[in-house]
């Protein structure tokens, strides 16, 4: 993989996540798409297995650092490193297991994989934060509302991925991913 190009794209997508996520948020539950997850899903759809997990870990840690949780009564913000990275890695595993059955050059594939991956990632993320909340961590967390929000956000991420596929898929070669032109995307790595 062309890591230099990936770092530049990741920086842009993290900036999009930070700057535009609230603008895209819908409804009282705050359904919001994740730009970073779309990038992760794209890498998971195309890159070798080890690269996918390193990407999931790196993007996850970056998001953990960006996504800070408020403490009760606005007494501060908490940074917890790990939840996004773990959630992304497990979602990456799901995408890796499904990608062999997909037509990777089709934008719908990225949309679908991003949707199912984001759904799993958000459920895992919710689980981790809920466990932390139950264990007495000083964070504001509402598990039920977050679970409902996860469904909407995952669907929204899938729709966003469908749009971003037209930007990301042409970068397959530049990023050094194998170009899967055959209908059935290729062998598992």
């Amino acid at each position, binding site marked *: *993989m062309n890591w230099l190009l990936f770092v530049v794209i990741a*920086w842009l997508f*993290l900036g999009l996540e*930070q700057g535009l996520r609230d603008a895209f*948020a819908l409804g009282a539950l705050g359904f919001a798409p994740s730009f970073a997850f779309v990038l992760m899903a794209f890498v998971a759809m195309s890159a070798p297995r080890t690269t996918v997990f390193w990407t999931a870990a790196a993007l996850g840690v970056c998001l953990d650092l960006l996504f*800070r949780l*408020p403490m009760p009564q606005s007494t501060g*913000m908490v940074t917890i490193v*790990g*939840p996004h990275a773990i959630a992304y890695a497990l979602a990456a595993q799901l995408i890796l297991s499904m990608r062999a059955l997909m037509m990777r050059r089709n934008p719908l594939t990225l949309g679908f994989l991003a949707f199912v991956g984001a759904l799993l990632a958000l459920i895992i993320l919710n689980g981790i934060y809920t466990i932390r909340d139950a264990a007495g961590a000083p964070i504001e967390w509402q598990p039920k509302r977050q679970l409902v929000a996860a469904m909407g956000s995952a669907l929204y991420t899938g729709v966003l991925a469908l749009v971003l596929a037209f930007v990301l898929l042409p970068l397959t070669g530049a990023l050094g991913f194998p170009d899967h032109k055959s209908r059935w995307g290729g062998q598992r790595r």
Partner: protein
Amino acid sequence: MLQNAKTRQLLPLTFVILVLLAFTPVRWVSWLSSFSQLMQTLVAPVSHPLAGLSRWLSPADRGPPDPEAVRALEDTIEETKVQLYQALSENDRLRAMVKELQRGMALDPDLRVLQITVPVIGSAGDMADPMLTVRAGRKQGVDRNTIATAHGLQLVGRVVDAGDRTATVAPITSKSSGGLSAVILLDESSASGLACTLLARGDGTLHGDVEDRYDTATNQPIEPKVGAEVRLRDPNHWPRSAQMLLVGRVESVEPSPKQPLRKVVTVRPTIPNLERVSEVYLRIVPESDAPAPAGTHAGAKR
């Protein structure tokens, strides 16, 4: 690069460390917040213009844009109002202070407030209840409890976390902000009014019980009016520099479901969507302006 055996061996170790970090008590990993600030700074060159663009396309106040001169005048009026109410409040305090001085109490020094305009570069936390990330931090004198206001001295919220170059502001309409005490002004010539305790509802408004008070002359209950100004008066939890800032206007008055003879009010900030402001004014107090105990100096000098 990552195809070799060594990186494959490192991968499980990395995830073991991440799992451990994910479940480590918060107090042991508080040092990670400095990396968080670094990451905010790193993505700011991308997120800042995008946040600005999105806020320009979808502004906090969707009404017709005011000419700059009108905005400046409105700011001046609001500033004068705040100063007036602070002065009136200060008068009341000074009257009480005379009595205190007779008992040998010392006066607090006057409070100086430095106001800086900073852009909002993104949002933080839960998207259903977002906080604002602003481009100013400890290097600009921002610290926790620094007050953020918007156009017209509308109280936006306060800083809950400050890094070197960025800070996080919890809007008053955020559920995690924890509520506030305020006063509903009965007329514009006086800083007195009905006390109320407000909590954010999550829909951009605040809601809460109003003090039950009777007119001594007529023995009729004094009721808040729709459209009345609501200003912060919470010296126990908010810094002095925030007292009497505009919280919003009364949108509705209803009987309390718990006590029908009492009233509850819904207050809406004058800027309809505080989470969408593109810039905030941070009111920095040169010296520590931590929440003062009840009954202490409540005035401010700008």
